[in-house]
């Protein structure tokens, strides 16, 4: 063989990746693509079963006797959910700021020197902020779930209950994982500080976090707003 003749040197260390990108980032995007199908299945089911429940409570409709034992009001609480949607959107803002802070750790003063500039440059602050906003969202969800249960909507109650709780529950579980992930990053940041060389792992968690956010954007419209 041509090359065996001039015995090439052994390739030491890791050969560069083909695309120059990090494996993990490709994997997370593939994962996000896959999650699209997961949430589509859940959302489709919710929509397919919309209006098919044989007994209340219903999302948007009032249910009077004799269809329902007592008069049931529409159960979805739009004002509260609008607030929690806003909270989640803001958590995405916090997340991009956390990533920017990590990426620019080695450029002191990049964000300005005032108090706001220093705040912008604090990755710990924004990681914590993201996690707190995420947790707040979860708090709203916990409140929503308990109040629904009090109003007679459980996961066993009707098709709406089953598909609603499963869909939003799956989303909530994703947020929970995201919060744990952020807290883990925060712990690392506290222990040894996150710098530009860690930007990738923060970027990956950010992609996940934003994806969970866009899923909620879809859910908010398809489940809560559209009647």
């Amino acid at each position, binding site marked *: 063989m041509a090359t065996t003749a001039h015995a090439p040197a052994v390739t030491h260390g890791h*050969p560069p990746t083909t695309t120059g990108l990090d494996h993990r980032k490709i994997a997370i995007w593939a994962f996000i693509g896959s999650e699209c199908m997961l949430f589509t299945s859940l959302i489709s089911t919710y929509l397919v079963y919309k209006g098919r429940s044989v007994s209340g409570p219903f999302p948007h409709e009032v249910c009077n006797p004799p269809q329902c034992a007592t008069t049931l009001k529409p159960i979805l609480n739009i004002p509260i959910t609008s607030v929690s949607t806003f909270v989640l959107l803001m958590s995405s803002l916090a997340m991009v700021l956390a990533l920017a802070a990590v990426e620019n750790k080695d450029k002191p003063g990049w964000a300005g020197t005032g108090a706001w500039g220093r705040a912008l440059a604090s990755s710990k602050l924004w990681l914590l902020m993201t996690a707190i906003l995420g947790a707040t969202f979860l708090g709203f969800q916990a409140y929503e779930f308990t109040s629904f249960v009090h109003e007679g909507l459980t*996961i066993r109650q009707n098709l709406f209950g089953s598909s609603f709780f499963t869909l939003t529950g799956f989303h909530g579980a994703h947020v929970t994982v995201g919060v744990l992930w952020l807290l883990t990053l925060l712990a690392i940041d506290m222990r040894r500080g996150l710098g530009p060389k860690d930007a990738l792992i923060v970027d990956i968690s950010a992609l996940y976090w934003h994806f969970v956010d866009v899923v909620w954007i879809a859910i908010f419209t398809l489940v809560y707003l559209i009647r």
Partner: protein
Amino acid sequence: MATAATAPAAAQKGYEHEGGIWSWLTTVDHKRIGALYLYTALLWFLVGGLEALVIRIQLQGPNGRFVSAEMYNQLFTMHGTTMIFLVIMPLSAAFFNLLIPLQIGARDVAFPRLNAFSYWVYLFGSLFMNASWLVGAAPNGGWFGYTPLTSTFSPGLNIDFWVLGLQILGVSSLAAGFNFITTIINMRAPGMHFMRMPIFTWMAFIVQFLLVLAFPVITIALVFLQFDRFFGTQFYEAAAGADPLLWQHLFWIFGHPEVYILILPAFGLVSEVLPTFSRKPLFGYPVMVYSGMLIAFLGFGVWAHHMFAVGMGPIADTLFAVTTMLIGIPTGVKIFNWIFTMWGGDIRFTTAMKFAIALVALFTIGGISGVMHASPPADLQQTDTYFIVAHFHYVLFGGSMMGLLAGLYYYFPKFTGRMLSEKIGTWHFWLTFVGMNLTFMPMHWSGLLGMPRRTWVYDAGQGLETLNLMSSLGAYIQVLAVLVGAYNVLVSMRRGVRAGNDPWGGPTLEWSIPSPPPDYNFAAIPTVTSRYPLWEHHAPGTSDIPRTISDQRVPTAKELGIPMPNPSIKPLFVALFMTLMFACMLLIHLGKTPLAIAGIITCATLMTFSLYSWLLTPLEDEH
């Protein structure tokens, strides 16, 4: 030009894996994981085949009483589930593992420990699913488990095993999917752009996308079923207004891409075997790639052809009929390109080649009957009869299985360093070929003569006796075939002729390195300048490398200064705790809910703990 650079070419004698059970439990080496997949899947093939054998004994004559109706239902459910999820998919995974890094010139996959995790999940999931036999409650709802039969109307543990088992196995496939997507995108050797990638790797690449996009859908469908069964949700509860077609749609949105998950790896293998033994490059490589993509893409838009009898209405029937028929076009292109790969070649009928040719011949039969199902009015007279059983055994056995067996004979030397016996292989092939056709060909007729599938018995005097007897005889011949094949594997593993780097004169990078390859695969990462790097150096299908074995050692990674990932037991633990977590759910149906909750929490904690400990341990030592 390929840099098939290794230590002196024929030097494999001194190279030995470090042995011992522990090294297998902790391995993160893609070749060893591939071997684990291979042997595990072959074992499950014996089990799935045994189930088929009992089915055939029962159906040998009318009104058979060899097994009970309940047992029969468990048998065909587990036969289908086993063959699809525990045999064909993992056999494909065995080849993905062994071949993808070798074909693209990489030292391992992108995430070696995730790779180990996938295997362990598969192993534990398959054991869990089959543990149902031990408690006498094997799944009995058919391999596509239609609700509400599997929800409201199946109180026992049977379906629980099936639901939970499939959930577990899904995790394995998904994890492997992300891993291989990353590997193929990101670890190709310099110069190997996409249109130079070996065709098997291409098909594997496409399959990974099918996996990661199809599995989430069945995961959700199964979650609903699991919730219905365990937590009293109403997804499939007809009395609550549910539509049982929801399950069918979700299942087949997964299920049809799944059948291409089952066939494309075999197509890929055959596309490697045919050129080598025809001494000619693959005919129309780019078209082969595009047709693979097209098949996969169209495959997401045809699912409801499994539901022509449910009453979807004429518009939906028309839509799905047309998309289904369209798939025949890219598949036909593949068939003809294979034939023209051989056309004008210099064909050597090795065992691998025979199996590959059998795929071309037999898959065509299955494909044509597939097109017959695609016509909804005609399908009304076919669906749920043995005509369908004939179709899918022609594509699954005549297609996937034949292709994988071709791959086995072709790549066994790469796995083990030893050749499978060609003489026994010839017997293996002909017994398989004859037995297979004798089993499944008559099923076309039994179906059209009115034999519904999944029936425990058929009555005498319906004109079905002879046909079923033929099918059963065919199955008995297949038993012989399997025994011969198993004998070949077992004997050759120990005493087979030693294979050099390149026993067949293959064109792609995997043949440039020793068999079995050293743990780092390539001492120097080759630079690729063409689709068939090795054929630039020797005539196709011949090998310049002497078969003789020199005593020279293949140097170890350490000696060469190549960083290797550390072995790790953690993936196994995560897989184990995850499986146990699912298994604990069964306790709920045994009336031990508190115990179940305690078990689930314990296992989840242990799993999370192992996972953190895995993720926080670097893959390799600092260097």
